């Protein structure tokens, strides 16, 4: 019986160390009568966790992500074939657009476009975004769209903090995380050779410096063909991401001072997600 109780205490302390990031001392303070017995075990647990904190190599990570996304694309292609297999691809897209226009004709989609996470039309907004993603064929196009959706999520988080809705802040932050993760994944796939179009080389200019349009090399080559247009577009995307990475987390941090107390923990998590997410996306761009 006594052993069973000790197993429970040890397990609770391990959860606090491993999952909640507490210290050995905090756990010992909770169970002073068991401290002598607990301390060496918790120290072993911490050493074990340190020793097993292994990371796969970055090269493998990139390769694995590429293979995973290829498998997803194959799966998607196989699934969509029975539905529209008899139609040429342009017809599939046209049909989907037609259906969307029919729905949009009622004005519902337009109204949903400005809705917030606590409003009834918000699921429609998310559904419309999914349709847009489906209709975007290229990886880089999808990455750009996810970046745009991340901008929306940031604005929504700001509104939900203002309205003191911590649960909605949490949910929207998770959606933000997904968007930024998808940007990073799609860019990694491109880097690994997943699409014909490779990203332009990293700019030599400082991250947030604005390059005058006409002096930029890509601007001079504008109109010389599809390739240079594409490179200019990619460069523009890179600049946009750099701006967002600087501005968005800063905007959320600025809200901290005046945010309602009950919304602050969720806001802090949203800030952490935005910082880590943009950093990851920028690493994929380098």
């Amino acid at each position, binding site marked *: 019986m006594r*052993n069973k109780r000790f197993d429970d205490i*040890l397990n609770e302390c391990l959860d606090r160390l491993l999952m909640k990031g507490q210290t050995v001392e905090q756990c010992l303070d909770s169970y002073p009568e068991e401290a002598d017995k607990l301390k060496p*075990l918790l120290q072993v647990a911490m*050493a*074990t966790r340190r*020793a097993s904190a*292994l990371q796969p190599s970055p090269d*493998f990570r990139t390769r694995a992500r590429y293979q*995973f996304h290829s498998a997803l694309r194959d799966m998607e292609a196989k699934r969509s074939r029975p539905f529209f297999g008899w139609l040429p691809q342009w017809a599939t897209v046209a049909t989907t657009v037609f259906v969307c226009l029919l729905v949009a004709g009622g004005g519902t989609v337009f109204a949903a476009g400005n809705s917030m996470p606590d409003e009834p039309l918000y699921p429609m907004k998310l559904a419309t975004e999914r349709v847009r993603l489906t209709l975007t064929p290229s990886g880089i196009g999808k990455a750009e769209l996810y970046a745009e959706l991340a901008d929306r999520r940031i604005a929504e988080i700001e509104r939900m903090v203002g309205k003191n809705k911590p649960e909605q802040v949490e949910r929207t932050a998770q959606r933000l995380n997904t968007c930024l993760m998808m940007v990073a*994944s799609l860019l990694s796939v491109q880097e690994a050779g997943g699409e014909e179009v490779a990203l332009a080389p990293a700019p030599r200019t400082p991250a947030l410096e604005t390059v005058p349009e006409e002096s930029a090399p890509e601007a001079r080559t504008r109109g010389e063909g599809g390739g240079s247009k594409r490179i200019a577009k990619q460069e523009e995307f890179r600049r946009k991401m750099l701006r967002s990475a600087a501005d968005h987390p800063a905007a959320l941090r600025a809200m901290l001072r005046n945010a309602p107390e009950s919304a602050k923990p969720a806001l802090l998590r949203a800030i952490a997600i935005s910082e880590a997410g943009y950093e990851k996306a920028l690493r994929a761009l380098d």
Partner: protein
Amino acid sequence: MQNEESLVRRAQQHDPEALAQLYEEYFGKIYRYIALKIGNRTEAEDMTQQVFLKAIKSISSFKWKGVPFSAWLFRIAHNQVVDYVRKRAKHATVPLVESLVSTGDNPELIAEQNLDAERLLSATQQLTKAQREVISLRFPGGLSIAEAARVMGKSQGAVKALQHSAILALRQVLFVE
């Protein structure tokens, strides 16, 4: 992860965004679990990838009846390890110190991890199979006791007791012997 159930349901509908999110969430944990169990980093990388490819193929068969998704995924990893061990039974294990070192940029950290990883390997080799399993699921795998119990097909009480005895045994080997 928030609302994993709805995420898994979306993944079962082959929503690529949901599948990618689950992949990112579990990739590192599954890799560490496999690496610690088999002691070979290169093999662990390939096997981790196989686990996820199997998972996306069979995710529609996952039934949400109180079984955590993590338990299902780690079960696939466990089976992958069992197959590997069976096939490689006659081959010697690659020493952990050579194969499991994390590739960071900090030489001091690498040295510390080397030392710890080497000692951890020799220590875990002296545990029983069940003790090694609970350590792999709890520490590198990051599973809760309930999830570990699901993967191992044991009661939570039994897994807690195993966890206790495994840590005692590790302490004996790492710090007392």
